[in-house]
Structure formats: structure tokens, C-alpha cells
């Protein structure tokens, strides 16, 4: 079974800070990590390899530094890693990114059959969740997003049953293979890598593909030229108008709470006297669907 996983190296956005004076993003010292969802996609591919044999190929588009992320994938158990890197790919939006990944995958398809494509649900730096669906559409393979669990998979019969998480519950979907899944973290817990993988990773050098070699990417579809969307303006969000801050140490507990309830009542947001009779919005989908 041959699984291709696409990953992204991202800044650890939980550590991103804003310069309070300039209002700009402080990027220095922000560690680069493998997009957390992608770790689980790689893990799933490695588990499937253990079960069915075969191999795991990991691809990424990014700066040369993204090679670090690929080496971590080798530690996790990936067999082959490809870094697609070229300054011409820079400033790609999701349409241009999905073109590059789909074209790279087509080149891999020429080398031999691929059974499954795995992507993380979304990357934590952009949170768009668009690249996986875009690649599936370009490759014309079935797409299952929000994949939570693989109930069964049969590479011989080329069929899988996958659980997909939605707002309303879990859809159980049967799909033809090859298919493309975008995965949630629950799909496979990340396990500790065996020592042999670590040794292999220490010596491993990812393959490097440019925008012309070994695949001649259409230069009109990559990077900024291939991106229909552009950032018109970027700014730090304006803070909401803050109200008073009162202190228990100054006003006492009862008075603070009394003022809070008085403020809530006066704002007209809710009527405290009548709200207890309102029903809790716990109906499975009653509120969501009008």
C-alpha cells in the first residue's frame, strides 16, 4: 500500500506575539513546527504501512528550512520525502498551492500506483482547510474531509469505510480508493518513534524538487502569479471597547456581583428574572437549523 502524505511546516501560532507599539507580528524566535494535524496524517500512513506493507511518501511545499519537518517525518516512519522548494512558489494562495501539490502527485503517480492521499484537516497558520479539497478536486479522486476514524480499508478491493465528523454527528462513508482524506487528530495517536527510524532520519536528505526540475510546473499557475487572491491590508484587530473593571478587594464581593448583575440587566442583553424559564439549547440540531 502506497500512501502519499502532504504536510506543511508552520510557525507555532500559540507562541506568536504582537509588538504592542507597532502592532506588527513578532516572528523572531517563533519556532517552526510540523502542522499538528499533519503529524496524525503521517502517523496514520505509517500504521497502514505496518499493517499492509508498502511505503509512505511525504511531500511538502515550502522554504528550504521545511526540510527539517520532512526529517521528522522520517523519524516517524516515512520512507521517502520530497521538498518542493523554489522562490517562484512564494506567496502562493490555496489555489496555487493545490496546483503544485496535485502536479507533484501526478508525477509520483507515473512512478507507480498510489492508494491513499492524506492531508491534515487544516494548517494552524492559515486555518483555511482548502488545500486538501483543492488537490482532491484537481486529481479527481474522492474527498473525505474531517476524517475521524478508518473503520475498514482494503487496498486489494480498493475500498475503505471512513467516519467523518460533522456538526450533527458522524457520517459513515464508503469510498473507492484511491481517495483523499483530510484528517482530525483522533485518526491516529502519535507514537514514540523507534530508534531505527531516528538513526535513519539522522542521515536522511530529502529529495529537492524545484519549479522546473524534475517536474516542469506551469509558471503561470504557481506562486503569486497563480494566486487569484492577494492580501490588500493586514492589521492587528481593533480591541472591543472595554467597560469598567471593578475589584473585589475595593468594593467587596457582594457589591461587585450586585453591580455585575445590574450592568447585565441594564444592557438589555438578557432578562435575569425570566431567563431561568428559558430552555437550554441542548437540542441536537434544533438551534442550528431553523
Amino acid at each position, binding site marked *: 500500500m502506497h500512501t502519499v502524505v502532504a504536510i506543511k511546516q508552520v*510557525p507555532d*501560532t500559540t507562541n*506568536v*506575539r504582537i509588538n504592542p507599539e507597532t502592532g506588527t*507580528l513578532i516572528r523572531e524566535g517563533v519556532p517552526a513546527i510540523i502542522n499538528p494535524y499533519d503529524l496524525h496524517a503521517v502517523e496514520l500512513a505509517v500504521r497502514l504501512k505496518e499493517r499492509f506493507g508498502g511505503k509512505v511518501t511525504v511531500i511538502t511545499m515550502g522554504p528550504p528550512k521545511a526540510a527539517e519537518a520532512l526529517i521528522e517525518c522520517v523519524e516517524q516512519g516515512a520512507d521517502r520525502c520530497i521538498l518542493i522548494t523554489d522562490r517562484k512558489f512564494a506567496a502562493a494562495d*490555496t*489555489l496555487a498551492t493545490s496546483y503544485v501539490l496535485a502536479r507533484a502527485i501526478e508525477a509520483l503517480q507515473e512512478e507507480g500506483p498510489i492508494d491513499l492521499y492524506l492531508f491534515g484537516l487544516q494548517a494552524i*497558520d492559515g*486555518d*483555511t482547510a*482548502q488545500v486538501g*479539497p*483543492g488537490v482532491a*478536486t*484537481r486529481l479527481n479522486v474522492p474527498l*473525505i*474531509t*474531517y476524517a475521524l476514524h478508518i473503520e475498514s480499508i482494503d487496498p486489494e478491493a480498493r475500498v475503505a469505510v471512513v467516519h467523518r*465528523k460533522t456538526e*450533527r*454527528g458522524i*457520517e459513515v*462513508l*464508503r*469510498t*473507492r480508493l484511491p*481517495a483523499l482524506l483530510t484528517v482530525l487528530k483522533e485518526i491516529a495517536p502519535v507514537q514514540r518513534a523507534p530508534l531505527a527510524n531516528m538513526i535513519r532520519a539522522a542521515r536522511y536528505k530529502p529529495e529537492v524538487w524545484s519549479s522546473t526540475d524534475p517536474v516542469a510546473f506551469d509558471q503561470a499557475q504557481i506562486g503569486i502569479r497563480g494566486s487569484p487572491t*492577494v*492580501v*490588500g*491590508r493586514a*492589521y*492587528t484587530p481593533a*480591541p472591543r471597547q*472595554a*467597560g469598567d*473593571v*471593578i*475589584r473585589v*478587594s475595593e468594593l467587596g*464581593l457582594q457589591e*461587585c*456581583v450586585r453591580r455585575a448583575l445590574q*450592568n*447585565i440587566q441594564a*444592557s438589555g*442583553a*438578557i432578562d*435575569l428574572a425570566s*431567563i*431561568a*424559564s428559558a430552555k*437550554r*439549547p*441542548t437540542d*441536537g440540531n*434544533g*438551534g442550528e*437549523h*431553523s
Partner: protein
Amino acid sequence: MTDEAAVKRIWVFIEQEEGRAHQVSWELMGAATKLSQELEGSRVEGVLLGYNVAHIAEEAYRYGASRVYLIDDPVLEKYRNLPYSIGASQLVQKYKPEIFLIGATTLGRDLGSSIATRVRTGLTADCTELAIDPNLKILAATRPTFGGNLMATILCRTHRPQMATVRPRVLPLPEPLPTATGELIREPLDLSEDDIPVQHVGFIPRTGGLNIEYADVIVAGGRGLGSPDGIKLLEELANLLGGVVGVSRPLVDAGWISYEHQVGQTGKTVRPKLYIAAGISGAVQHRVGMANSDFILAINTDPNAPIFQIASLGIVGDLYEVIPELINQVKAIHQGTERS
């Protein structure tokens, strides 16, 4: 007579499941109506796919659609990516809308990128604000990026339609006009079941049924709770106020409560009438999920906690004192009401 080809169509994808429209569709319809006021020669129209769903078009007219394009076909009975994206893309290619808005639900996020890829256009995900750029007369779609640390306004200058998704509850629900009517345009879908590589073979309904996105009152806790027992206290106040419990991400990561309760960038976006943030410092990742609440009451021991910068009222104090006192005083109000 209007020249149909010259109309700048602002489209809203009307998401439905089991014959019921998702409220985000009407929230988007409200946004589309505002955009159409800023864009000369434009018109708000709905796109509806499903099976036996024509009745939803009536609802769409009331929320501002002058026309609804309907593909009603058995293969569309349950949502699947392929037939929905092919159907919607065919409509785009035929009617050439200027703008196409879709809810950033699990369904909409699955569908939107597939349509944008098929028709080769730009799609801006999870927007929090939509406007028409006054000079360029194109869509200015603003979204949080870098985990909510930065807002970016995205433009799609040359490709059409300009596509955007918006999360539920980010935009207000407009008032419907009960007498409004519109025009229904039916279009065919040339797909048979054999053409579709994915089949629904089962469904496991969500248990517990928490619907935090549409709750009127949320009592939320963060790291300041200190222990999982604090959640019981939040629950007690939430029950009293007819609300539900929300949390910031660390509590979900720690396994104290399920993901369904998580508010913020990687959780749910909420817009309750009352949001009580107890022991939540107010990191930007949390704030982007709740900053649209009508009234925010923040309770924190740290007077410098960023949550106070967005709170309607802040109390510097220990949540383990303040919440029990809130419970006491709310109970007293209720008892007073019962007696009168």
C-alpha cells in the same frame, strides 16, 4: 427591463440538511444584502441543492434573495462533495456570479474549496467581515490569520466569482420579510449514482447534543479554574441562567471536558447575549471566538489579564468567590420573581 447578463449577482449558498436550512445561510443573506447596497447593479440570489427542498426557496426570498437557483435531484439527498461541487460549479459557469458566499461549516468548508478549484478562482476562508472596497468595487474579505493575531483583508481582483466563507454566528441574523417572494430557476444535474465514488452507509448522531454556537448564555472557564472540579461550578451557574458551559483550549487539551465546549480559533465561534469568562486570561485565540458576544463579564485574579480589554464589565477577584456569589444573587432574583 433589466439586462440579465449585466446583473452583478451576489450568491449565497443555501446550506440544508434533511430539508432544513442552516441558519448561517440567512446570516450570509443579510451580509449579501448589505453588499448589494454598496455595489451598483447587483442582486442577491440563492443557490440551493438537495432533494425535495424547493420549500426552502420560499424562506430564502424572505431573507433577501430575489431569485433562487435550485438543483433538486435524488443524488443530492445527502451531502457529498462530488455531486454538490459539480452542481454548484455548473451554475457558476452558466450564470457567472460576481460574488459567492458559503457558510464555513463542515459542509461549506468541504464544498467551497472544491468549487473554487473547479472554476479556478480565489476563496477566502472564515471571514469575519465582508465589504465592498469603495474604490475598486470588489469584495474586501477580512479574516483572522496567524491564530487570530493578525487580520488580513483579502482581495480577488481578476478572477470571478469572488468567493468567501463565513463562520456561523459571526454575522447577525437579519429580520425576515414575511411577504417577500422571488423567482425559482430549476437546473438539471447530469449525474447518476454510479458516477459518485462515495456512499453514505451509516450515521451516528451526536450524543449530548450541546449546541454552544447558538446558546444565549455561556459560562466559560479557563486555566484559572485550577482543577476539573471548577467545571461543576460553571455548570451550576450556567443551569441557573439557562446557558451552557464553554472553555478555553487548555481545558480541552488537559482532558477536563470535551472539544464541543471549546470556544476560540480552534473551537467554536459564539455570539451569546451573555458571556461570562471566569479564569480566562483572554489570549487572542480565545477572543476571536467570543468577542462578538453582547455582554462580556470577565472574572480574573490578574488585573492585567487581556480579557479585561474586551469585557463589558470586569471583576478582579477569585472566581471561586465570585461565581458562588453570582449563584446566590441570581437565585435571589428568581425567588423574588416567583414571590411577586
